[in-house]
Structures are given as C-alpha cells and as structure tokens.
C-alpha cells in the first residue's frame, strides 16, 4: 500500500478515536470562503477543530460531475478533511480519501456536535417528569 495513503488512513482513524473519546471537540460553523471560492460546490455541513496547533476542517462537499455518455451534469457528494492555516485563509492540505474512514469520522463528529445523547436524555427526562405529574 502507498505509504502516504496509509498515513492518511491512520490520521483519520486517530481523529475519529480522539473525537469518540471527547479529547477533541468539533464545532459547527460557516464554511471558510477559501473552501468553495471559485467552485459551484455546496457545503451543507462544516465542522472545525484544533489539534496540536493545527486547524482541521471536516466538511461535506456536494459537487457536480459530468456524464459524457448522456451529456448531463449530476450531483455527487464526498467528505473532505482539510488542514487550514490559523486564519482560515488558505488550505494547507486536504484529502477526500479514504472514503469509508472519512465517512465514519464525519458521522462521529456530527454525532458529538449534535449531542444526540444529551437530546435523548432530555427527552427521556421530560417524559419521566410528565409521568410523575400524572
């Protein structure tokens, strides 16, 4: 296997693990202009975090592909992991592979940002209070 791909895979898995163990916190924010400037892409979800002095951005990118056989454009999406400079003015490095590991990282980060566990706990707590009142 290509050493660069192996390193990227290990980086993505490490970020996934640190996210899962709450050692790094992702935050939802507006996409940095540099990410989509000069493209027709749509960024429906954009998460950022800082780790060891690096600014990481994890986002879902919807882009258009061209189908030459039918002469039409169609939408596709992918997850991209990027390292930005401190002021988010330029992209130092980005990758959209490995697909499976990046998708898992994105799901983990989104899960933590949305705080699904907390929402469920609140809903269940509200349900218990209503039962107590009755």
């Amino acid at each position, binding site marked *: *296997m290509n050493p660069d791909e192996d390193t990227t*895979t*290990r980086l*993505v*898995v490490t970020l*996934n693990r640190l996210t899962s163990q709450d050692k790094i916190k992702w935050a939802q924010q507006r996409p940095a202009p540099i990410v989509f400037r000069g493209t027709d892409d749509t960024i429906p979800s954009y998460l950022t975090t800082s780790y060891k002095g690096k600014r990481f951005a994890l986002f879902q990118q919807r882009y258009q592909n061209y189908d030459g056989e039918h002469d039409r454009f169609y939408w596709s999406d992918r997850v991209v992991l990027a390292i930005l400079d401190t002021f988010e003015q330029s992209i130092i490095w980005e990758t959209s592979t*490995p697909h499976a590991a990046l998708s898992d990282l994105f*799901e983990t980060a989104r899960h933590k940002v949305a705080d699904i566990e907390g929402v469920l706990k609140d809903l269940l707590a509200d349900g218990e209070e209503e039962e107590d009142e009755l």
Partner: protein
Amino acid sequence: MANEKPQRQSPSPAEGQPPHSEPSQPVVAAPSFFPQWAQDLNVGLSFVGFFITLWVLYDVRRIRASFVARARLPALMRDIAKAGSTLNGHLQQWPEQRNPALGQIKVAAALLKTSVTIAPKSERRHLSRIHRKLTLAVTRASASAPLDEEAAWDMYSDIQSCLTSLDQAVKNLKWE
C-alpha cells in the same frame, strides 16, 4: 568315392550368430515426402508448442482471476466498509457495545478471508496479515480476557487500511 559330387557346403555361420540363422537385413524406412530437415524442424516445433500451451494455460487462469477480482472486489469492499462503519458505531459506546463490536470484527475477518483469495497477489500478503491478526484477537477474547478498547480501535484501523489497499487494487484492475 570318386564319382560322388562334392557336397556343397553351406557357409559357416559368422561368429556371434546362432547357427543356421539367416543374416539380419537392415530395415529401410519407407521414403518420406518431406526432407529430413523438415521432419527435424517439426519435432522441434512440437516441443516449443508444448511449452507455449503451458504458458497459455497459465495466462488464461491469470486473466480469469483478474475478471473474478474485478467483479467481486467492489461488492466485498462495500461489505467490509459496512462492517467497519458498524464497528465504529459500537466503539462510540464502549464498553456497553463490546460484544457487538466483537461480532463485527468477526464479520470483517470472514470478509477479509474471502478477499485474500480474490485480491491480486500484490495485496494478498497485507490482507492475509490483517486477517490473521483479527482472527487471533477474536479467538483470544473471552469472558476472562475481554477485548479492550485500544485493541478494538487498532483493529478498526487495520480494517480501514485493508479498505485502502483494496481500493487501490480495484483501480489497478481497471487498467488490466
């Protein structure tokens, strides 16, 4: 007696030959339409043809394996990726989801075993090593020595590295 005609004596047999046997006649082959050099060339080309047949047999098997890999590997990759994603979900709720995580590792190990037989030779060593590692971890995990989170994440990382290898193998197969 004087009037007796001298008896004609048969020639004495040559040394080494049995008595009273006729001398052996050399075997003369039927005349061939082709000259000798053409016949020698025919025999030589037959040997060459035999080795070419062996090479064609080997190449046909290699091409067949390539087609099988091209057809089966993408589906196998999707299944392994699904097992990896499910494992990732279980890892988020460790240690409550320890047993389901172990189940997914078993599933991934079984899928990797299939992929080892189908993948190109360049990837088999790596896949085989990961498969052995997963199988060993699953075998060793028991009630007295349960799987710990570090080892589970390590195996998740190995599964992802296998997916990266298979992805490159599939891309290479498109050019064969």
